[in-house]
């Protein structure tokens, strides 16, 4: 189509030149009209191409001969000198045309290379910011689409097999194409349309590899007739594949490194856990075993009072052991994501009551001030788990404050949140530890070496966060620590 248009343009050009010469005929000699035709040839070579320009020169000679060289309106030439003019005109036309064509070809190539460079630049820029496998795959496909005017499908090694990691919209599973992709992957050579292997495939597959590690295959489905472009595209395709492979390799390596780091962190944590657990499990057992062995000895010189005291100690330690095991189980469940909330509308007073009932025998003579609003305070929560939270907070307050100081529990609510606080008059904690006390196994250093598990507060955090709430600590003015729990309420307080 375009070719036909260009040949018609040749005819039109010649016609215009002829008409122009006809207009000038009274003023200039026929020899100078050749210059007008020459202009037409130059225009044709600039706009239409080499062949068209030569044709214009040829037609120009004929038209000039026919219309202007006497005898006019015949092809016969009276003055043989014109033959030199014809020859000169034709040769000059051809030379100009081929020179222009060469320059244009070079410019074209330059433009192409520029486009290639730009598209490679875009690709490398996108790949540089892609942090994970998924975004790398996505930017490869996106760049193939925009730079090559093509659809793309990226196969990556998944275990032993090749699997589609990312594909343009409209990609359907295609067994034939996958076969070609497999071949390309195994042999590490391009395959599919435009190559000698599976040339009937709709797609061209480029293997992606770094050094000797095969990573996958990039499949390209050209939207426009590709045959003529393959040779010029080869260079770009190879560059694309290399860059893509490098980016994939980079992400793979960084993922490996990350994995190793996580493993190491987990190992450290497990060691800390093991140390802490064995310590916290053993300590009560030491007491219990000691007491039992004393009682077990038959020649028992213990007074009734001492015996009672010993048994009480063992009893308390057994309770502590039980709580610790409970905490460990809670932690395990939280971490395994097995915690399922049973959200119910609960009376906050009931919650406080449950918590107080369960810490009662550990409170001794300590006073607990409970301050709740006079009206019924209802909130959505898992009562069992939130009781656990409150118990841990109260335990924490009791553990870290002098025995005669009061523990205060307050609760209030607005439209959006239920806020509960447990405050003590202990030493408080340094500012930089305020967030760290919720870390697992973090125990702030206290002189007496309080016997905590370092799990209580992190369990609280886990449970509160599972409710979509937050927990934080702050030092009180006047001394002491305040632990605040906020649970979101979605207007479900009203019954």
């Amino acid at each position: 189509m375009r070719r036909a248009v260009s040949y018609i343009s040749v005819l039109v050009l010649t016609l215009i030149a002829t008409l122009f010469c006809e207009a000038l005929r009274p003023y200039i000699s026929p020899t100078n009209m050749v210059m007008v035709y020459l202009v037409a040839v130059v225009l044709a070579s600039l706009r239409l191409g080499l062949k068209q320009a030569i044709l214009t020169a040829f037609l120009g000679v004929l038209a000039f001969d026919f219309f202007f060289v006497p005898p006019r309106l015949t092809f016969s030439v009276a003055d043989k000198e014109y033959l030199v003019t014809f020859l000169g005109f034709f040769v000059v036309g051809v030379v100009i045309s081929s020179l222009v064509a060469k320059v244009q070809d070079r410019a074209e190539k330059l433009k192409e290379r520029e486009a290639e460079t730009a598209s490679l630049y875009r690709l490398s820029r996108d790949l540089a910011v892609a942090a994970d496998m998924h975004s790398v795959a996505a930017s490869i496909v996106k760049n193939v689409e925009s730079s090559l005017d093509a659809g793309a499908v990226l196969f990556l090694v998944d275990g032993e097999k090749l699997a589609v990691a990312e594909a343009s919209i409209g990609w359907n599973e295609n067994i034939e194409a996958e076969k070609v992709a497999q071949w390309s992957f195994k042999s590490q050579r391009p395959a599919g349309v435009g190559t000698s292997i599976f040339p009937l495939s709709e797609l061209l597959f480029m293997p992606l590899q770094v050094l000797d590690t095969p990573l996958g295959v990039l499949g390209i489905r050209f939207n426009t007739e590709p045959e003529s472009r393959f040779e010029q595209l080869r260079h770009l395709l190879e560059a694309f594949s290399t860059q893509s492979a490098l980016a994939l390799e980079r992400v793979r390596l960084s993922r490996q490194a990350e994995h190793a780091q996580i493993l190491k962190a987990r190992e450290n944590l497990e060691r800390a856990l093991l140390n802490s657990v064995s310590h916290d499990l053993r300590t009560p057992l030491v007491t219990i075993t000691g007491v039992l062995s004393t009682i077990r000895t038959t020649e028992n010189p213990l007074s009734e009072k001492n015996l009672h005291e010993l048994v009480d100690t063992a009893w308390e330690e057994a309770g502590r052991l039980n709580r610790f095991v409970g905490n460990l189980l809670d932690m395990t469940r939280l971490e395994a994501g097995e915690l399922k909330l049973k959200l119910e509308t609960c009376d906050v007073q009931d919650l406080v009551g449950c918590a107080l009932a369960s810490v009662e025998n550990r409170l001794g003579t300590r006073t607990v001030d409970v301050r709740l609003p006079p009206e019924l305070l209802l909130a959505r929560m898992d009562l069992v788990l939130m009781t656990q939270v409150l118990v841990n907070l109260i335990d924490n307050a009791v553990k870290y404050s002098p025995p005669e100081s009061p523990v205060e529990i307050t609760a209030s609510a607005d439209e959006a949140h239920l806020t509960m606080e447990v405050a003590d008059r202990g030493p408080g904690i340094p500012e930089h530890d305020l967030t760290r006390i919720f870390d697992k196994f973090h125990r702030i250093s206290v002189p007496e070496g309080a016997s905590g598990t370092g799990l209580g507060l992190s369990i609280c955090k886990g449970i509160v966060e599972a409710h979509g709430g937050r927990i934080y600590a702050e030092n009180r003015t006047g001394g002491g620590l305040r632990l605040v729990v906020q649970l979101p309420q979605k207007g479900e307080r009203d019954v």
Partner: protein
Amino acid sequence: MSKDDNLPRILIVDDEMPIQRFLHTTLDTGEFSLHQAESGHAALAATVATHPDIILLDLGLPDMDGIEVIRRIREWSHVPIIVLSVRDREDDKVTALDAGADDYLSKPFGVAELQARIRGALRRSVQLAPEPVYRVDELEVDLSRRRVIVRGEEVQLTPTEYDLLRLLVIHSGKVLTHSQILKQIWGVGYVEQPHVLRVNISNLRRKIENDASRPHYISTEPGVGYRMRSCD
């Protein structure tokens, strides 16, 4: 065994030998005649053979689910069943209670508590009609006259609150699950609406408890239900 004939018979169902031994030793006070079973099937057989007055049942049995044991026993017997369950298995407790268990104890538990539960369950099982007057500390509920007296003064309750208190009093010492209470007071349609119950319990506590934040008479068993303080 003949000397045991008139003693209440307790069937202990637990597959853990140390626990069997512990329960045996602590309950062997001469008050009870003790029998044991280590599996669900053995428990069912022993229930038929010995006609126990009370069953202590561990839910984690090797051969069948403890809940299933309760269901099968309940098909033909009203013998009180006290479930021994590990902490933080509230759902199991509720299922067991709703299946017909009378009470539960969280492991580990103290002997005094176990004995109190056993006595309570035995008392309820022989008692045909509830005592007309329930009296604990400063609370008095006269079921025949629908009167509630706290610290010597009569307290006005709404009809629902009274029904709720009456239900709890009749079953004092025993834990009632949310669904059991909801079914009895509001009807089956309310079983999925426990907040109605919570609101009424809160109101009831405000009227009869000294300090509603530390309830003395009506205690909450988180995730399970409520328990009225027993007369003894």
